[in-house]
């Protein structure tokens, strides 16, 4: 079945086509969300939301880009929104803890251990994941899509709606920032 046929069947609400779409993209979507959010439960929630949105708005999908690019775009937008909401909640929790009578320390998320990493790299990767989190959203997106998902500059450009040179520049800046942070941590 071609992509066009799959989209056409999805537009008609075909359940089998939806199952096929989920089977095709579930691993990619879940892993992209996992790399972004660094939490299995959040990643699963976001992956589900991505497929629900795809199901409801497939009629809006114009075949200007590939289905994969469109799904990646939805996934990244949702991940960035989720991160923003989480930061806002954390800030609010901090402010409310200042005014509360109980002197409770805020819970800091533990280091993330990606399940697909080799054992000898887990510790270093946890440090790198923490540093990637401190990058600006677009640098983080470009870096993760390139470094972990292994996407080309052209594919990243299509997802982020940027030119290849802009993606290259983003990646250079992301790498520079990361090297700087790593060197600061290990003087």
């Amino acid at each position, binding site marked *: 079945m071609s992509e066009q046929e799959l989209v056409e069947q999805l537009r008609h609400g075909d359940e089998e086509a939806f199952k096929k779409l989920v089977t095709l993209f*579930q691993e990619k979507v*879940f892993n992209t969300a996992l790399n972004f959010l660094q939490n299995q439960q959040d990643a699963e929630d976001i992956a589900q939301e991505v497929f629900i949105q795809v*199901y409801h708005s497939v009629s809006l999908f114009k075949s200007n880009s590939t289905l994969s690019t469109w799904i990646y775009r939805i996934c990244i937008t949702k991940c960035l929104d989720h991160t923003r909401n989480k930061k806002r909640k954390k800030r609010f929790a901090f402010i409310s803890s200042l005014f509360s009578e109980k002197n409770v320390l805020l819970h800091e998320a533990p280091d993330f251990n990606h399940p697909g990493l080799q054992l000898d790299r887990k510790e270093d*990767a946890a440090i*790198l994941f923490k540093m990637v989190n401190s990058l600006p959203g677009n640098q983080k997106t470009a870096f993760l899509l390139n470094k972990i998902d292994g996407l080309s500059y052209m594919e990243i450009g299509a997802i982020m709606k940027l030119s290849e040179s802009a993606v290259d520049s983003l990646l250079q800046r992301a790498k520079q920032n990361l090297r700087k942070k*790593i060197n600061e941590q290990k003087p």
Partner: protein
Amino acid sequence: MKTETTKKAAEAIFNSFDGIVPAALPPFFYSRLLARMQREKDETVATIFLLRPAFLTISLSLVLVLNVLFLVQPAGKSGPSTVSAGKTGIESFAKAYNLGTTAVYE
């Protein structure tokens, strides 16, 4: 020597994502996705039912009718009956404790 070690450690951190393999999906992902979609659909149906004009009109009419009933009923029925009930109550109380008007001068 120390700088060389630090450089190597920094490089190891920077390249630690190399060779990463995709994580396994949580079990029953598709089933859970379908369950969530069904749940959200049910919630939407309930919300839509509550916002239907027919449902809203009937609810509003019922509230209006109940209001009118409460306004009209006390004036018509319960007014005199309360007074008479009050009178009999006082009389029976006076009788029971022997508090009739004559009792004061006895």
